[in-house]
């Protein structure tokens, strides 16, 4: 039965082969290619190379990221290189197949632990199949019984004859039936044993004929291997689903440098980011006062001055991507008294003359109820942050912000990486509670938003400007919206103002840095959007 099935299958394969041979063009080229193919474990090589390519293609992570992540991710590359190299060895050094097949088999096995369970099993399986096929490949043993009589013509031609196929099938069945399969095969191997070396020698003589084709194939194979990684970006540029994502805007591929994809690296790109969010920049952009880019200051203050009495709930419109301009256009819903105060940021003065830097930023009346003791001498609280901050800072808002044990340090400078600096207001709080804190960070091409409730002990906040309605304790009355920018406050004054409790509602700020020992959060929701 088994013999019958085998015979039928080989007959079918042969018939199909003959048919294909008749209809396909270029018989001469195919014949010589076939001859080349049959002198080496060709299909084994294909399996192994396919396994290697699959393993590195499935992670789909670009090489720079893999290198940064470390040895773990690099193993995908290493193992696939071993497999591809093994496949090339099978093709061009078939006499070394024994050792190479063991190497590729071990590499395939190792991939299971190191590379996505071996490319989700597929690459590992292909590698194992290919390795085993190469291990089992033997030259000069296509048809031993024919070879004995008529070596030159017999080998290839014999495979075409159905009688021979049937004979082989019978032989296979017989050896299976007698239970010593390896014996039967071994005998065949022994019969051929003398020849393989001689055959391989002759193959080498004939090698120069196949040399050109071999060179072409070699170039193709190496090009394929080389294209595995670089092909990543090309494919993702073409396909919309980003099969090969590139999570490193800066580290982009060399041939992408300067194409605009990496523009986020240059801080100079940021100022162009937000002007459209403020429909009416007043243009008095205090040159030289702050070296900071204009993303934040122009957006927040204009909202504040445009509608001084914004109600408490206004902040919830900020995370929907509509921008601060929409908030500014909205008529102020009345909660506090309708008093227009100048927004003392030096960037947007609400149409009023620019105040002299150094003046007291807030109306002293607003602070009387807060009992502000003036501290002279050592600065209380934690020392100022010493690491470099980013130059593209975030617009943040909160429905309400309550700081307990606040220390207002005044204005100071924080350094950026390029040697620049940002002037910021520096506030410390023993405990800061923010309800419905929204975070909006705009970078070229994208917007990151975070919506969360925060409770932060021991925090230092550095902002470019801050606006909101102060809530006066005890009588619980909200002041009109007050806006204060870092640029109008003299930097590094030797005083610090201590406030036991400070409540601000409808807060908006340009948040440069938050440095905290601990952040407790709840109701976190973070999203990335395309602009």
């Amino acid at each position: 039965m088994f013999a019958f099935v085998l015979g039928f299958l080989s007959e079918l394969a042969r018939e199909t082969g003959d048919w294909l041979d008749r209809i396909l063009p270029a018989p001469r080229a195919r014949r010589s290619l076939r001859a080349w193919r049959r002198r080496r474990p060709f299909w084994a090589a294909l399996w192994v190379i396919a396994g290697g390519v699959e393993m590195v293609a499935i992670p789909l992570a670009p090489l720079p990221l893999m290198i940064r992540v470390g040895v773990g991710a690099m193993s995908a590359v290493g193992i696939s290189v071993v497999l591809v190299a093994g496949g090339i060895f099978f093709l061009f050094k078939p006499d070394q197949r024994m050792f190479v097949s063991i190497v590729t088999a071990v590499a395939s096995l190792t991939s299971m632990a190191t590379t996505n369970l071996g490319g989700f099993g597929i690459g590992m399986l292909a590698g194992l199949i290919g390795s085993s096929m190469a291990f089992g490949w033997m030259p000069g043993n296509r048809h031993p019984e024919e070879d004995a009589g008529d070596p030159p013509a017999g080998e290839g031609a014999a495979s075409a004859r159905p009688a021979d196929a049937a004979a082989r099938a019978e032989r296979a069945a017989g050896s299976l039936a007698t239970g010593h399969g390896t014996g039967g095969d071994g005998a065949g191997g022994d019969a051929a044993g003398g020849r393989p070396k001689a055959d391989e020698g002759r193959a080498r003589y004939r090698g120069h004929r196949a040399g050109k084709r071999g060179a072409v194939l070699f170039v193709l194979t190496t090009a394929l291997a080389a294209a595995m990684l670089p092909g990543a970006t090309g494919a993702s540029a073409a396909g919309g689903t980003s099969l090969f994502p590139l999570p490193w805007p800066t580290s982009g591929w060399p041939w992408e440098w300067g194409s605009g994809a990496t523009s986020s690296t240059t801080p100079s790109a940021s100022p162009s980011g937000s002007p459209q969010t403020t429909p009416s920049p007043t243009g008095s952009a205090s040159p030289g006062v702050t070296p900071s880019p204009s993303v934040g200051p122009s957006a927040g203050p204009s909202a504040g001055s445009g509608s001084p009495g914004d109600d408490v709930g206004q902040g919830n419109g900020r995370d929907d991507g509509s921008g601060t301009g929409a908030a500014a256009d909205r008529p102020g819903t009345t909660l506090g008294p309708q008093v227009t105060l100048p927004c003392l940021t030096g960037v947007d003065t609400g149409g009023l003359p620019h105040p002299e830097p150094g003046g007291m930023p807030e109306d002293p009346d607003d602070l009387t109820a807060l009992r502000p003791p003036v501290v002279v001498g050592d600065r209380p609280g934690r020392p100022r942050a010493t690491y470099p901050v980013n130059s593209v800072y975030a617009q943040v808002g909160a429905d309400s912000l309550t700081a307990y044990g606040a220390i207002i340090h005044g204005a100071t400078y924080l350094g950026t990486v390029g040697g620049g600096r940002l002037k910021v207001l520096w506030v410390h709080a023993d405990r800061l509670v923010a309800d419905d804190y929204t975070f909006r960070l705009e970078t070229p091409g994208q917007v990151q938003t975070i919506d969360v409730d925060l409770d932060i002990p021991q925090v230092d906040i550095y902002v470019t400007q801050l606006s909101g309605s102060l809530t006066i304790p005890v009588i619980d009355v909200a002041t009109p919206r007050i806006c204060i920018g870092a640029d109008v406050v003299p930097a590094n004054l030797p005083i610090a103002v201590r406030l036991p409790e400070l409540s601000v509602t409808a807060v908006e700020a340009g948040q440069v840095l938050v440095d905290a020992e601990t952040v407790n959060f709840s109701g976190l929701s973070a999203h990335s959007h395309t602009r």
Partner: protein
Amino acid sequence: MRDRYAHTGSVAEGRTHWRRSALMFVPCTLAVGALGIALAEGAIAASFAVSGTAFKVSASEVTARGVSSFPSSIGGSADDAKPVLLAAVKDGTVSDVCVSLKQKLPLVGEISMLVHSGADKPLAGTDLVVNADALTGGGGKVTGVQAGRDASTLTGAPGVTGPRGVFGVQADTAVAHDLRSTAYSANGGTLTLEKLEIEFSRSGKQCF
């Protein structure tokens, strides 16, 4: 017919001897089985690097030590770049994690894969880098926070830094509950699995 292969002469044409191949294939298959059992039991740590399509991840609790994060994008060109938040973790644990992935395959059609793990004992991982575009969490606690540090100077997760001039966040430790995220890529140094359950379905079942 007979001289069709005559030009090949008696060169060392060969063929694959399947029983010989089995000599290698069978032991290797056994080794794969043993490895698979060891991985599923958590005896050996596996390494991961996946990305391409969005996949959903949920976990009841995540703890992490050494966290760096900054806005990034995946996709080759500026036009089809997908904005994401990159988060890198030096080492951490995940409890009761579910990963689901929907994929359209050429012949099979749309198929979804769900992976559950760590219901009894948390998974442990090192050097994880995740690109996520949405993240929600019930609550948690982060310590040693520096939000606003330049992304090129981040030190939370070793070796992972971002572009210069970009808002970066780093933290010493983080604990978060009931996390849900849509992620685009995850690259793991190592991940010690725990009772892996993989489920394929064609009904479009997802983690959430």
